């Protein structure tokens, strides 16, 4: 996470209805934006992956009412957060899953998630958050209030 005392600069705020047709556009925009802002191709790709997986999860598992994405910078860190309205049951599931995921280092957790994927129902992959940690190289934090969840991913720029 970013160091206490670093100011947080909000670079992008997007608020929209969680419709599937936004996912690619949001990923492309945030990826390009990060690449241009940090003048680095890799951070652009990493931000794109993280944004896509967070937004996709919010759309799949949220209640289709509201979604807010923030892209912020704090010192040498990039913070990406996606907040959406959802059921409290979903928040509990997510919290439990995140706890299991973070038991292992990112690459091992991703490998385990890939191994487990084939045993899940066809419509699920269980790979998104593991991918954020491993491929995106971002840490994950969950904050929740009744009916709302915010996933924040933090990584080095």
């Amino acid at each position, binding site marked *: 996470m970013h160091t206490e005392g670093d100011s947080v*600069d*909000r*670079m*992008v*705020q*997007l*608020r*929209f*209805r969680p*419709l599937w*047709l*936004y996912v690619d*556009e*949001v990923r*492309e*925009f945030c990826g*390009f*934006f990060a690449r*241009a*802002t940090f003048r680095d191709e890799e951070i652009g790709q990493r931000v794109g992956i993280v944004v896509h997986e967070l937004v996709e999860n919010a759309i799949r598992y949220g209640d289709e*009412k*509201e979604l*807010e994405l923030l892209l912020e910078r704090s010192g040498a860190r990039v913070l990406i957060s996606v*907040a959406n*309205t959802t059921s409290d049951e979903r928040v509990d599931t997510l919290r439990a899953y995140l706890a299991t995921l973070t038991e292992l280092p990112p690459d091992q957790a991703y490998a385990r998630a890939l191994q487990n994927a084939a045993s899940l129902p066809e419509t699920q992959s269980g790979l998104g958050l593991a991918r954020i940690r491993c491929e995106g190289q971002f840490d994950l934090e969950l904050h929740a209030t009744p*009916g*709302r969840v915010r996933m924040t991913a933090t990584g080095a720029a």
Partner: protein
Amino acid sequence: MASEQQPTLVVRVALQPVWNQIEPLQGYVLAASNVHVPTLSERTGIVVQELLENAVKYGDPGRSIDFWLQIPSGRRGVDLSVSNHAHPRRVALLQQEFEAFGPNPKDTLARAMQRLPRLPQGVSMLGLARIMNEAAITLKVDGRLVTVNAAIQ
């Protein structure tokens, strides 16, 4: 976040004044506005492009541009603004342009086209005249901070 009056879409970006930031943002705005106000999306795209281009071309290269766009719920329209810092000479020129606008946007654009041959190569000064034909625009100046507000309906 959970109010009935929440706008349908909000986009707020602090972008660096570099050319390659414009197209991705315009692309996102176009796609997003096409979902909610398809009859306004093309005009929105034009206004966004022209305002951002002006901000990049004429703004302070060391200060970020603040872009804000909102599609309100309950009414068909797009509201947006672009704020940037600029050299006092540029600010004065912009204020002059606004003051010279006539009541008829088409006439304003025609006049802007007519003056093109008198301008240096690479300068068109058509942007604002073009925007006027797509949106209701106002200018706010606060020292070196310039904000153009646009309402598309």
